[in-house]
């Protein structure tokens, strides 16, 4: 009964989404206030219907209703409750439903928080979101239906892929999807502006918070995914330039460019056509990222399924959404007259350079990711493009980006001089140089470059704030008092840039990580990275739906016990698979990382790593996302705030 209810709610959502796509747009075209006013209600209605459908699926999973095909395939009654809940989005059908739910949430959010928007803009934005939603909910209903029944129902489900039974991965999809789908709102704003034929500073002010929120979620989602692959896969790496990873990196790069170019639209009323194109491009990359990868078109270890019907539906849908948007752009963009002139050497100029570099990196990553696909289709050659390619092509573009990231915020709008900015940065440059030179004595050139870049980024991020509070030029107390006067958006920017520096430090640290593969018996000892690793015991340990083999390792340094860790291997009888359970002990400056391999002649094969600064990679991403959130909290960015402020002086006077 409950699954049928969910099925019905899903069908209802398609109908409401179709109405949401048509009525508000007609209303906006005819200036019909009643039709335009229907937009938020329809958006709420669609969200409620999808929430009901999602709730029904969640219920079926929690009570282990194996008469639902999707649950029988991916769940089992012994699974812990947490994974029964999160397992709902662990498979293809459920994750598509979650995707649709978040898209509907975006429409409802514009309905709820967009009261201050002009009625026509709000109606068009919600209409575009409705049209997009209608397509994808229809996809879920027709070829990816999570509520299909199975008769007769099996006694026990097939169980979930044990790799996915992990708290990190449990919350990775919702956060990542919130990022991917969040970019639908800037996309809808871009299309609304194209239909309207007008982009102004107010448009930039409306778009930026949504783009920023989506960007913060995407940053967090990517970091969580990378962290998961680091501690679950046990390969000792954190980023493999796998198509799935690249698919999330591409919208992130484009979204980062969008967040920055929207500033120029807002402050200087320039770069409008470009920003509209970026908004379209970012969401298009998100769509391709989710669906091309999920449909298995790009070969990857993460791909879910290879179903031709789904593939064709998705390709047509993507072509429709992206094609319509680009056609609309080609048709209407020439009407958006360029305004706002600025010198190349200015804050705007630096932001343009940032956009060029980010988009160049995105282009390189895109080429590398799709090249094997085209090589196979066009030449029949089977080629793969791996990490060496991406490292060689991305690094040279990242370095100028890091340089501009620090200098850009020091320049003034419209027209700036380089010399004063450089003078204020001399001590940062000196510190970065000192660290870089010091590092070259100990490491190879690239990690040294990375450490220098991270010092440059972290210190450089706060030079502007230091200048604003006139630290050491005014009495310290006065300076600190001035800290409160700095707008949150400035803090957010500085913190996000520093976060990038922290991540770069982590990446550089990982580049000098040490590792060793050994085969030792219990009681034997090996040395690595200044630590002494002793294999104390090999033992069996039972679990709820698996049996495990654990190796107890004691790590000492100068006779002092640093850590006792137990890496292991679990075998899941139901799924007939084994998983590696990596053991990690961190003190934030380095990770001790141990993996248990197979056993032979009483000896255990162990892979031991000392990963310097590894946690900084994800910590930096969190700091970046927090910086985005802080910017978002700035009153000036909040939707409707300008209106209220415009009203305030009248009262005061």
């Amino acid at each position: 009964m409950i699954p049928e209810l969910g099925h019905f709610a899903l069908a209802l959502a398609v109908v409401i989404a179709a109405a949401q796509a048509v009525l508000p747009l007609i209303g906006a075209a005819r200036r019909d206030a009643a039709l335009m006013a229907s937009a938020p209600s329809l958006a709420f209605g669609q969200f409620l219907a999808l929430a009901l459908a999602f709730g029904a699926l969640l219920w079926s999973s929690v009570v282990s209703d194996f008469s639902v095909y999707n649950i029988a395939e991916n769940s089992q009654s012994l699974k812990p409750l947490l994974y029964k809940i999160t397992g709902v989005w662990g498979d293809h059908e459920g994750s598509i439903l979650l995707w649709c739910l978040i898209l509907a949430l975006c429409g409802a959010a514009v309905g709820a928080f967009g009261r201050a928007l002009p009625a026509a803009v709000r109606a068009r934005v919600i209409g575009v979101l409705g049209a997009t939603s209608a397509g994808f909910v229809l996809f879920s209903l027709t070829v990816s239906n999570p509520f299909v029944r199975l008769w007769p129902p099996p006694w026990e489900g097939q169980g979930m892929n044990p790799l996915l039974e992990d708290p990190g991965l449990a919350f990775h999809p919702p956060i990542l999807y919130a990022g991917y789908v969040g970019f639908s709102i800037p996309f809808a704003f871009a299309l609304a502006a194209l239909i309207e034929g007008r982009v102004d500073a107010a448009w930039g002010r409306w778009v930026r918070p949504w783009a920023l929120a989506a960007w913060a979620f995407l940053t967090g989602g990517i970091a969580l995914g990378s962290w998961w692959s680091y501690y679950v896969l046990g390969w000792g790496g954190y980023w493999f330039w796998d198509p799935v990873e690249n698919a999330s990196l591409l919208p992130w790069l484009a979204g980062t460019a969008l967040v920055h170019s929207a500033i120029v639209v807002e402050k200087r009323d320039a770069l409008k056509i470009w920003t509209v194109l970026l908004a379209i491009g970012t969401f298009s990359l998100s769509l391709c990222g989710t669906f091309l990868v999920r449909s298995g078109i790009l070969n990857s270890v993460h791909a879910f399924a290879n179903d031709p019907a789904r593939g064709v539906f998705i390709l047509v849908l993507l072509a429709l959404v992206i094609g319509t948007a680009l056609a609309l752009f080609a048709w209407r963009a020439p009407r958006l007259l360029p305004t706002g002139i600025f010198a190349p050497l200015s804050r705007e100029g630096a932001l343009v350079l940032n956009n060029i570099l980010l988009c160049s990196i995105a282009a390189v990553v895109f080429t590398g990711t799709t090249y094997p696909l085209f090589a196979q289709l066009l030449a029949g050659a089977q080629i793969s493009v791996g990490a060496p390619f991406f490292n060689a092509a991305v690094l040279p573009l990242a370095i100028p980006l890091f340089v501009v990231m620090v200098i850009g915020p020091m320049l003034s709008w419209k027209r700036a001089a380089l010399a004063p900015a450089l003078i204020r940065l001399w001590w940062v440059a000196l510190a970065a140089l000192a660290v870089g030179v010091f590092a070259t004595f100990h490491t190879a050139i690239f990690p040294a470059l990375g450490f220098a870049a991270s010092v440059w980024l972290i210190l450089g991020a706060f030079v502007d704030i230091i200048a604003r509070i006139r630290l050491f030029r005014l009495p310290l107390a006065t300076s600190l008092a001035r800290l409160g006067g700095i707008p949150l958006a400035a803090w957010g920017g500085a913190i996000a840039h520093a976060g990038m520096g922290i991540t770069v430090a982590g990446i550089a640290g990982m580049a000098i990580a040490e590792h060793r593969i050994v085969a030792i018996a219990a009681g034997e000892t090996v040395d690595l990275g200044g630590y002494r690793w002793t294999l104390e015991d090999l033992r069996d340990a039972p679990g709820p739906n698996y049996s495990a083999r654990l190796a107890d390792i004691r790590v000492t340094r100068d006779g002092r016990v640093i850590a006792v860790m137990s890496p292991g291997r679990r075998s899941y009888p139901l799924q007939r698979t084994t998983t590696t359970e990596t053991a990690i002990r961190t003190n934030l400056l380095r990770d001790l990382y141990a993996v248990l391999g197979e056993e032979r002649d009483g000896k255990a094969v162990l892979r031991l790593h000392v990963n310097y600064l590894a946690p900084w990679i994800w910590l930096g991403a969190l700091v970046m996302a927090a910086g985005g959130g802080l910017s978002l909290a700035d009153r000036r960015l909040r939707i409707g705030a300008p209106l209220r402020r415009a009203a305030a002086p009248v009262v005061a006077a």
Partner: protein
Amino acid sequence: MKRKHRRLAIVLACGLGLGSAAALTLFAFRDNLVFFVTPSDLASRGHAGETLRLGGLVAAGSVQHATIDGQPAVRFRVTDGRSSVSVSYIGVLPDLFREGQGVVTLGTLAPDGGFVASEVLAKHDETYMPKDVVEALKKSGHWQPAAGPPPPAATWNTLPATRNGG
């Protein structure tokens, strides 16, 4: 500076950015493209020194433990049903590595004709076979996916080819 000049400056900057991106891409492609080969490909022509992806099935009964340069290693044969090649690998094998099942290895061909792998990827779950392995089997004429599921994995390395020549 006139508007025209500014626009020219921006266009030039974009061109420079995309141009250098294209140059970097091409430059990196030259050294870092990795071609996929099957054991038959390796047998028919030499690829010494190149980095390659070798795909096929782990021949049943071929996995041996060894020690290379004092580190624990493993040797196994990768087969596509027509020919097979010996692979040596230092490190921990992935969870899903099994005899008779699909595997993709990244590495180089040593002068002695053995393949030295730096990475070993096993297939991701019980029902999914890496695309590269499917290609290798199709190429050697052992399996047409349209004709049904692959024959039992344990028989792969002894299976006669259904297609001659090629």
